């Protein structure tokens, strides 16, 4: 996950996904990927809401490792 992902950006992306699914402009082919991305974004936000500054750093680090 991007290091400089903000709540703002995460929420926007989430809304975008919601909108795409709403208008069914998401093909079945990428649906699972979209939902996965949405779940990651939500998890990111929720974790970050509750994590300490150090923990947030760790989360971001982990996400980056994963995305590699």
């Amino acid at each position, binding site marked *: 996950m991007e290091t400089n992902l903000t*709540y703002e950006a995460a929420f926007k992306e989430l809304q975008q996904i*919601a909108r795409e699914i709403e208008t069914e402009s998401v093909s*079945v082919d990428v649906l699972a990927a979209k939902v996965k991305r949405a779940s990651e974004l939500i998890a990111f936000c*929720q974790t970050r*809401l509750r994590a300490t500054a150090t923990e947030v750093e760790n989360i971001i680090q982990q996400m980056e490792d994963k995305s590699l």
Partner: protein
Amino acid sequence: MEFNNGRLSRQPFLLYLYAGLDTQHYITLSQLAATIQGTIRNAFTGYSAWVVADITSHSFYPAKGYHYFDLVEKDTRSHQLTAKISATAWGNGSMRIREFESVTGQRFSNDMQVLVKVAVEYHPVYGLKLSLLDIDPSFTIGMLEQQKQATLQRLLTECGDIVRKTPEGYITFNKQLSLSPVIQRIAVISSASSAGYQDFMHTLEANAYRYTFHADNYFAAVQGEANAAQVCAQFDAIAASGKSYDTVVIIRGGGAQTDLLLFDQYILGKAVAGFPVPVITGIGHLKNETITDMLAHTATKTPTRAAELIIAHNRTFEESLLSVQKHIIIRMQQMLSGRQQQLAALHAGIVNHSRDILSVSVEGLARCRQMIPQGARHLLLKQRSAMAQLSGQVLVKPGQVTAARIQELSHIKKDIQLYARKLMQQQQQQLQHHETVIKIMSPQSLLQKGFAMVYHNGAIMTGSSQLQAGDKITVRMTDADVHATINSKTINDGNEPNI
């Protein structure tokens, strides 16, 4: 207290001066005081007046509820005192002051201009005093309001770039900033010891949702008008920290609900209105909002409320997150089931229509199968009947033709016979007719009827012109010729009847 003590200590000295001069020609101070007291009492008993004055040298004894202060009047230009009378308030007056403080949200204290109802009293020991009977809160509110409006006007005039007034209220640069979706990094301006700060931090940390916050303290005295500059300095410190805060919270700790003038100060208003991070206030008052409240991004009544607002703000974000999540899940499941249905519908459609195509084809073929033999038979039948008709025509007609010709021939034969005979008869008749005519007109038949012919010199005479008397003539009659000589000649006048 100390001051009063000072005054009291000077009295034995005065007494000593007068006693030394003339004991007969003096009265005791107490006598004089009694005289003054009597005079004043005579003049002012039952008298009270509403007086406008400034307060100085105020002291308050909460245990007794006593207020000691001076009422002064200053020259508006020189600020020199033009009048000063000590005053007290206790009992009813003290109660009125408490009500006043409650209504105005302003502590009864020095440098405040008030409209007070006073009675004049004199005490032999304590001297001339004004006793406060009542205080008009609306006068003070009006005064404060005037100041506040003046400050606001100044802000509008001098800081037009960050403060604007609209029918809905004041719009500031700070108000127009949008809060981060989540508020986590907070700069807190407060006095370190205040209960409000404790309330705020406790409320934040004890939140039910386990949200974490990172609060940096920027302590400053947040009471007393003079401390506005200190508060402003902390705003500068926050700006200079280089940290990106989600919000700046100004809180003022519990205790007395008065003394809000600091927050109506021009410099603080300006600092708040133009601050690049949204400012949340939790100044801890219930009544009139201060200029700071008016110009800050968000105003709450108390520090606890400010913390709750921040938590609720974050919760709203998390809830919208969860709601989007829920929405995504629901829609996605709908979408998948919709796709499943679409697929099923297509499947059914393809199966049904394939069968339709086949059955239509089978029917079409069956129709051709039925039609072609039927049509061929029908065609042959029609040809046969056409042939029969034609051969019938060909068979019957020639006999009719020959019969008609025979008839025709016999007609013509009859005609020829008939007309040949008729023609012969006609000829016969014509011939007979001519024969008759000629018989009638022959000389022989004329002579028989009595006519006679006259000859002269061998020629028949048809007139008398050639005949003279004496001429010899021959008259031929039917049975003989008679010879005669003409005796005379008479010309006929034509009167004979014409035959």
